[in-house]
C-alpha cells in the first residue's frame, strides 16, 4: 500500500507555532488541526467541543508541555483519546521560572500563568530544532511507513532553521553593546535573551488599575531607566494599555509588535515560525539602532 492510499496521520497541534512546525515536518502526509489560532493566547484559551472531537480522532497530539497549555488535561479527559500525547519540550534544556510563573495581560488585567519551568522554549532557534526532532520522532513512531519522508522534511527544515539562527546572531551582534535592552509585554523572551544576548524587561504582575499597581509600575520604570532600555514593544496576544502607560512615563513610544506565543494570521508579518523570528529580530534591531 502506498502512502497516498493510506489515511493521513491525524495530528493535533495545540497552538500556532508548533502547528507550523508540524506542517513543515508532516507536509501532505498529515491531516493537521491547530487548536489555538494565530494571534490568540494559549494561556487563556478555553477548549471547545470541536477540539475534544479532534483530539478523540487524533493519532498524535503535539503539545509544548511545561504547563504552557493549561487547558490540556481537561481537554484530554473530555476527549477520552488514546492518541500519543507528545510534549515537544521533552529532553530540551529548560529554564526555571522565577517566582513560579509569569504574567499575561488580558483585558487590562494581570493573569498569572503558573509553572515551574519557563515554557517559551521555542524562542531560541536551537531549541526549535529540538521541537522538530521530537515531531519527526513522534510521526515516525505513529506512521513508520512514511518515516523516511518525515526525516527528510525535518532535515530540510532544520537546515533552514540553522540559517535563521545565524541570521539572528549576525543581526544582534551588529548592535552596539549598550543598546541591547527592550521592554516587552510579558516575560516570554528569556530563551531568546540567553541565546542571542538581548535583555528583555517586562512588568511582573502589575495591573493597569488601582493604587497598589502604581508602586509596581514605578519599580519597572526605575529598572527601565537604569538599564537605558531602547525600545518598548506591544505583543500580538495582549492589549497594550499597560505598555502605553509605561511608555508615557519613560518617554518611550511603542516600537511595534513582537510575536511571542502565537503566529500572526496569513496576512500578518509572522505567519510562520521562521517569519516570526525574523520579524521579531528585525523589529528589535531596527528599534535599537534608531536615532
Amino acid at each position, binding site marked *: 500500500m502506498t502512502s497516498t492510499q493510506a489515511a493521513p496521520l491525524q495530528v493535533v497541534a495545540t497552538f500556532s507555532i508548533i502547528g507550523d512546525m508540524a506542517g513543515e515536518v508532516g507536509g501532505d502526509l498529515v491531516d493537521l488541526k491547530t487548536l489555538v489560532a494565530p494571534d490568540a493566547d494559549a494561556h487563556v484559551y478555553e*477548549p471547545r*467541543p470541536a477540539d475534544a472531537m479532534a483530539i478523540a480522532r487524533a493519532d498524535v497530539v503535539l503539545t509544548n508541555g511545561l504547563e504552557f497549555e493549561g487547558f490540556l488535561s*481537561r481537554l484530554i*479527559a*473530555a*476527549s477520552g483519546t488514546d492518541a500519543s500525547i507528545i510534549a515537544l519540550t521533552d529532553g530540551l534544556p529548560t529554564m526555571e521560572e522565577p517566582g513560579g510563573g509569569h504574567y499575561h495581560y488580558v483585558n487590562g*488585567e494581570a*493573569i498569572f500563568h*503558573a509553572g515551574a519551568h519557563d515554557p517559551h522554549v521555542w524562542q531560541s532557534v536551537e531549541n526549535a530544532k529540538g521541537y522538530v526532532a521530537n515531531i519527526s520522532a513522534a510521526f515516525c513512531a505513529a506512521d513508520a511507513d512514511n518515516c523516511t519522508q518525515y526525516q527528510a522534511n525535518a532535515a530540510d527544515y532544520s537546515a533552514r532553521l540553522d540559517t535563521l539562527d545565524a541570521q539572528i546572531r549576525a543581526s544582534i551582534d551588529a548592535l552596539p553593546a549598550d543598546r541591547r535592552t527592550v521592554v516587552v509585554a510579558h516575560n516570554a523572551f528569556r530563551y531568546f535573551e540567553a541565546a542571542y544576548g538581548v535583555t528583555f524587561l517586562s512588568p511582573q504582575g502589575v495591573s493597569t*488599575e488601582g493604587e497598589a499597581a502604581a508602586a509596581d509600575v514605578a519599580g519597572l520604570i526605575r529598572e527601565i531607566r537604569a538599564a537605558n532600555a531602547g525600545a518598548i514593544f506591544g505583543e500580538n496576544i495582549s492589549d497594550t494599555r499597560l505598555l502605553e502607560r509605561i511608555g508615557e512615563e519613560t518617554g518611550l513610544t511603542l516600537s511595534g509588535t513582537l510575536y511571542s506565543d502565537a503566529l500572526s494570521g496569513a496576512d500578518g508579518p509572522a505567519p510562520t515560525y521562521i517569519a516570526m523570528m525574523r520579524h521579531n529580530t528585525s523589529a528589535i534591531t531596527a528599534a535599537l539602532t534608531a536615532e
Partner: protein
Amino acid sequence: MFKYLATASAIAMATTAFAQEHDHDHDHHDEDVTLYRVFVGDHAGGSVTALDLADPDHRWQFDTTGQVKLFGVAGGATVAAVQSDDNAVHFFSSGISFEDHGDHADIAVSDPAAIDTVLTGPRPFHVVDHGGSVIINYDQGGYAELIDAHHLSHGEVELTTFTQSQAHHGFVALLGGNLLSTVASDVVDAPRLGLQAFNADGTPAGELATCTAIHGEAFSGAYLAAGCREGVLTATASADGVTYNMLPYEADLPAGNTTGTLLGSTGIQVFLGNYGANGLVVVDPVDAPHFRYIELPFRRVDFALDPVHPANGYVLTEDGTLHQVNLLEAALTGSVKVTEPYSMDGHWNDARPRLAMAGDEVIITDPNAGLLRRIDTDTLRETGTIAVEGAPYNIAVVGGSGIDH
C-alpha cells in the same frame, strides 16, 4: 487593585485553614486521600443529613428553618442551604478543603459544622458562585447579597448588598469587573426583560441585553449563558465591559420550547440545557451549530454534568431510567433503570429524585424509597444504596482527591 480572578479565585476559594483532625500515618508518609461528603435535605423540610460516601454511617444531622436546596460553594468548602419558602439561607462548613499546589492539591478534612450566621430575606432562590463571590438573589426583595467566597470558605459570612430596580425571580453574577443582573419589567406579570451590567452601587454599566423571560444561568470557559424565549444569551468579559451574543433557537429544534436551566461544563466550553419537557440541548457558545438537540424517551426529572469525564452528563427520566449523555455526540450513550417511576405530573416541588456527581459515581436521591442510590459511571450499575431517614430530596456532594502530607 490586583485582579487575576480567572486563575487565582479557584485557588483562593479552595484555600482554607481547617485543622487536620484525621489520624496521621505514624511514618508521616504522604497519603492520597479521596473523600466525598454528601449533604441531603429532607423533602418535608427542616433537616439536612451529611455523610461520608466512603463510610456512610459516619454522619451528621443539622436543623434548618425549612426545606432546602443545597449548593456546594467556595470550592466545596461550604454548603449553602437555600430555603426559598422559609426566607432563610443556612451555611455549613463541609469539613473538606483543598489547597492547590499546581501539580497536586493538599486535602484537609474535619467534621462538617453549621456556620452561625443565618441569612434571612424574602424568597432567596438562585445562587451563583463565580469569580470569588457567592451571590444569592432574593426574588421578593429586589436585591441580591454578595458573599466573599474566600471568607465563606473560612466560615465567615461577609455581605454586601446589590439593589435591583424591581423584585423578580432572577440572578446576579460577577463577570470580569461587572455585576450582571437580570432585569424585570415594572409592568405586573410582564416577562423579565433581559440582562444588564451594573456597577456595585447599582448604577448601569452598559445597555440592557434583551433576553425575554430570562432564566437559569451557568458558566463555562469564558462564557456565562442564560436561557430566554429568543434563544440562549451568552456574555463574556471584554476590554470594554461585557460582550453579549444571542444564539437564536435554530429551525431544526422542536418548535415552541425554550431553555430555562443550563449547566456549564468545567472541562470544555459547552453547556447542557433543558429544552421542552422531554428534551435536552447541547449549547456550544462558539462553534456552529450552537444547538444540538437530544430527545429523551420520557419527561426529564433532573440532570447533571460529570466533572471527571467532561464529555458526559446524566439525566433521569420519569420512568426511573438514568441515561448517560455524551455532549460531543449529543446523544444518549447508555441507560439503566434505577428507581420506580416518578411522574412529572403534579407540583414542581413534589418529592422526586435529584442527581449529584461524586467522582466515578452518580448519587441519586430516591425519596419514596428513603435511599441514596450509587451508580458507577463506568458500568452504569448500581453499586449500593444508603438509607437516609425521611424523604431524601435535594443533594449536594463536595470533596475530591488530594494529598494528606
